Every structure is written in C-alpha cells, then in structure tokens.
C-alpha cells in the first residue's frame, strides 16, 4: 500500500528526492530497530548492571547495591589476586606466542600453494574451527589421562610414565589447540594479500631470505599478526572450559577465576569488577587493532 502511494508521489511530486531520502532513513531505522532494541536490552543494560555490581558490597545474604565503594577494585592489588592476574596474562601470552610460531609459517606455506591446494588446506583448518570446543578439549583429557596414549608413548620411548594432565603445560596445549584456527585465518588473509613482486624485488636486491621476511613480509602482514594475536590472547585470558578440564591448582586463568566468584564464592561484586577488567583489556586490544590499520575482525 505504502509502496503504491510512494510510487505515485515519486511520479508527480517535484521534490520527491527529498521526501524519498526521509522515507529511506525511516525505513533503515525501522529495519535496524528490532536488533537494536534487543542488543540494548540484552547487552548494554546487562553491561551497566555489571558496572553497578562492581561498586557494590557483598553481604552475608547476597549483594548490597546501596553503598557504593571501590573495595572490589582495591582487592585487585592483593597478593593472591595479583598472582592470578599475572599468571593468566603469562599463560595467555605464552599461548599467543606458540600459536604465532606455528601459524605464521603455516599460513605462509598455504599462501604459496596453488589455488586448489590453498582452498583444500583452508577447509581442513575450518573443520576444527567449526567443531565443538568442549569435545576438542576433552579429547586431550583422554590423551593425557592416566595410562592414556600419551603416557604409553612416553614409556614406550623410555621416558617413564609422563604426566602432563593438570599442569600449566596441559592448559597451554589445550588453549593452543582450541584457538590456533583464530590465528591462522587472519594471518593467511593478510599474507595472501602481500604483493609477491615486492618479495622478488627484495631478493633481486640481494636481501637474504630472512632479511626479506623481517623487512618486507612481516611488516606487510602486521595487521594479520595483530588481529590473530588479539583473537587468541583475549579468549585465552577469559578461558574457563580449558583450565577446568585440563588444569589443576596452579592454572587458574582470569576466566575461571571470574567463574569461581559467581558459582562457588558467591562474591558477585568482586566477580563483576574482574569481568570489567577483562572487558577493558578486550576493548583496548580492539582499539589498538583499529589504530594499526585493521578494518575487519
């Protein structure tokens, strides 16, 4: 109905351009409205509630929202809490570096293959990316478990019955396994875009292979390196499933520490403050990425 009226208006009104623009704006806003409202209700408001809770007081019966204070943030400086924060930053960093070291040569190799091979290689990277994360982490539990394949392997080569489960190594291994595709995909995308003539020119001008890598390829693929690092570092810092399946006492990451505050310690204000910190880390990482010239994640 509205369309008919509009069509006629377009035909007879000289200023139809103007009214058409207004109509278009309204139509765009109407299309966006449901999702907009949904995200305001289920994302923006919940985020506000987290911020409010982080200034609240924990009481014997739950959380008292009336007296605002900074106690939860002050606790971030406690020795115990600081240990957890530093350790999770360290484990997340280690995970990121291991992923980078494995993924960079892999992505470069992939970018140098024929189109057919490249697509095939990409599919086999996408499969783990789509596969259930919990199941993939659990697979390592089976491998590293008592008398499992890993310990059988180590005793077969005469290293005794190796035990990795519930150590930091197991957690980093699980995180690398889980997040490696997040590193490969952006790296491949940016390496593939590098103009091969630049690398040839560098070699023609007597640069060594390593020199070409360090001074041409690496700087040009930096957006991929940064995007991949953020996509691995942030979820590693916030990891909860991996440390609770493969980790032990000394493997708490920020993510699992936050979960503990809510599901067992029932300290909502402190948990909210920790979540806020994680959110800030994520937002700063994203800002750095966009500053460095990245456009899409």
């Amino acid at each position, binding site marked *: 109905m509205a369309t008919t009226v509009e069509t006629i208006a377009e035909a007879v009104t000289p200023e139809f351009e103007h009214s058409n623009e207004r109509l278009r704006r309204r139509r765009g806003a109407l299309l966006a409205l449901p999702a907009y409202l949904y995200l305001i209700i289920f994302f923006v408001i919940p985020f506000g509630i987290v911020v409010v809770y982080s200034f609240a007081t924990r009481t014997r019966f739950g959380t008292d929202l009336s007296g605002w204070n900074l106690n939860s943030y002050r606790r971030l400086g406690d020795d115990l809490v600081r240990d957890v924060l530093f350790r999770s930053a360290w484990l997340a960093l280690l995970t990121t570096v291991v992923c980078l070291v494995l993924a960079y040569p892999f992505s470069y190799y992939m970018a140098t293959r024929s*189109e057919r091979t490249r697509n095939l290689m990409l599919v086999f990277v996408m499969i783990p990316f789509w596969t259930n994360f*919990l199941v993939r982490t659990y697979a390592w*539990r089976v491998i590293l478990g008592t008398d499992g394949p890993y310990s059988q392997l180590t005793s077969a080569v005469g290293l005794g019955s190796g035990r990795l489960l519930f150590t930091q190594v197991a957690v980093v291994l699980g995180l690398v396994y889980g997040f490696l595709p997040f590193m490969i995909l952006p790296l491949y995308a940016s390496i593939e875009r590098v103009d091969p003539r630049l*690398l040839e020119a560098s070699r023609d001008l007597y640069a060594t292979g390593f020199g070409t890598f360090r001074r041409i390829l690496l700087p040009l693929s930096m957006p991929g390196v940064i995007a991949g690092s953020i996509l691995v570092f942030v979820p590693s810092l916030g990891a909860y499933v991996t440390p609770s399946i493969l980790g032990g006492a000394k493997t708490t990451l920020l993510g699992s520490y*936050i979960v503990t505050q809510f599901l067992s310690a029932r300290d909502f204000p402190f948990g909210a403050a920790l979540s806020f910190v994680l959110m800030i880390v994520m937002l700063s990482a994203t800002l750095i990425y966009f500053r460095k010239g990245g456009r899409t994640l």
Partner: protein
Amino acid sequence: MSGSVVRPTGKTGRLLAANAWLVYLFFYAPIVVLVIYSFSDSRNVGVWGGFTLDWYEDFGNSRQAKGALTNSLKVAVASTVVAVVLGTMSALAIERYRFRGRAFFDALLYLPVIVPDVTMAVMLLLFFAEAASLFGFSKGFATITLSHIAFSISFVSIVVRARISGMSEQLEEAAMDLYATRRQAFRYVTLPAIMPGITGGALLAFTLSLDDVVITEFVTGPGWTTLPVFVFGLIRKGVTPLINAISVIMLIASMGLVALSLLAERARGDRGSEA
C-alpha cells in the same frame, strides 16, 4: 596456477611443508584418538580393551543425556530462527541505509563477537537475576534461548553483510525500474541474492548455540540442561567412557554442520562467478 606469494624452495620449503603436516597432525590426531577410544571396552577412557558399542548403548539408555540433547536442539532451533531474522534485518539496514545512530549500532553489533564468553555470561547472569527479582520467572529454556540470540544476531549480521556488500544495489533499482514493487524487488531479487549469506549465518548461529557451555551454564535454572553443559558436568565429576561416546555424537553433529556450510559456501561461490 601458482600462489600469490613467492614459493619457497629447497630446505626452507621442506621445513615449511613439515610444519604444515605437523599442524594438521596436531589438529586431527586428538579427534581420531577420541573416536577410536569411544569404541574401547575398558572403564579407563584412554586404554584400549577391545571393540564394543556398549557406551553408545549407554547413551541410548540414558534418559538424562537424551533429554539434554533434545533441549539443545530446541534452544538451537529457536535462537537461530530469531537471530537470522534480526541479524539479516540489521545487515540490510547497515549496508543499504543511512539513519540516526547507525555508527553506534554498527559498533554495538561487533561487541558480542569479540567479548569473551565469560564476560557475556556474567552480564546475563546478573541481568536475569535482577529481572527475576522484578518480574519473577524461572530460568531455563527461555533465558538460555534469549542469551543465545544475544550473541548470534551479531554473527548472522556479519556474515550477511559480507554478502550484501558484494552485491550491487543497481540490481534492485533495475527491478523497480521494470515496475517491480519494493516488496517484489526484495522477494525476487534481493532475497535470492543474499540467501547464501543467510544460510551461512544460520549454520553459524546453530553451531554456536549447540557449542555454548559457559553462557548456558550461567543462565540455566535447576533441572534444565543442554547437552554440552550436561557433558561438562560429567567431565568435572570424573571421566567415563560414556562421555567419549557422547563426544563422538557431538563431533558427528559438528561435522555435519561443517559439510552443510561448505555446500552453502560453494553455492555462494557459484553465484559470485555468475555475476
């Protein structure tokens, strides 16, 4: 046809090839091991004790596990349907129109994708706790589905946007020049052209919903559980061969969805080459 970057040869080339095989071994060996041991007749999950199908039978007999699977599917279907509609509408709005608040909306749409799931879980836990104290409802199917929609909209929107941005607006204009109404132009031109994007987005939303553990665990109520949360609970109590079997079933579901998404991708590629 050769690749776009200089192809390394000699020792470097061999090292790179070795690294690639190593990465694939790393990706797939654990999955293969898991599948093999799910058929192992031993109480110890990592020890081979001869072939059996007992653990799959256990799954068939476990009312809890099957109930959790049904719940997972219900949530995944419901949240995908809503997310696809809202996500596609938002993608069209952002790609095709200018309106007030567009920049903020654009940024807001990206946030659920990059926020760690623990943070999102905390946000929704506190939100539903406050909402329940105001309106009084019990947590379960509704709260889980509402939460899954909250993160799925963004993924659908991003996938559909990629498709729309590669499509010329002139197609719709041409249709309307040929006297198609706005609705007809959408139905017969826009929708078919962006359909591969919508399918891809729907499969992604469905997969993410089926995979989610953390957010679901935070917003679920007593007595209502999805398959991943049920499995996660079992793992923390102690590993059993039943978990191996359920894991393999979830693995097969994932693989099926990958296959479907590859088909959708292929359809997308074909249309791209026609245009």
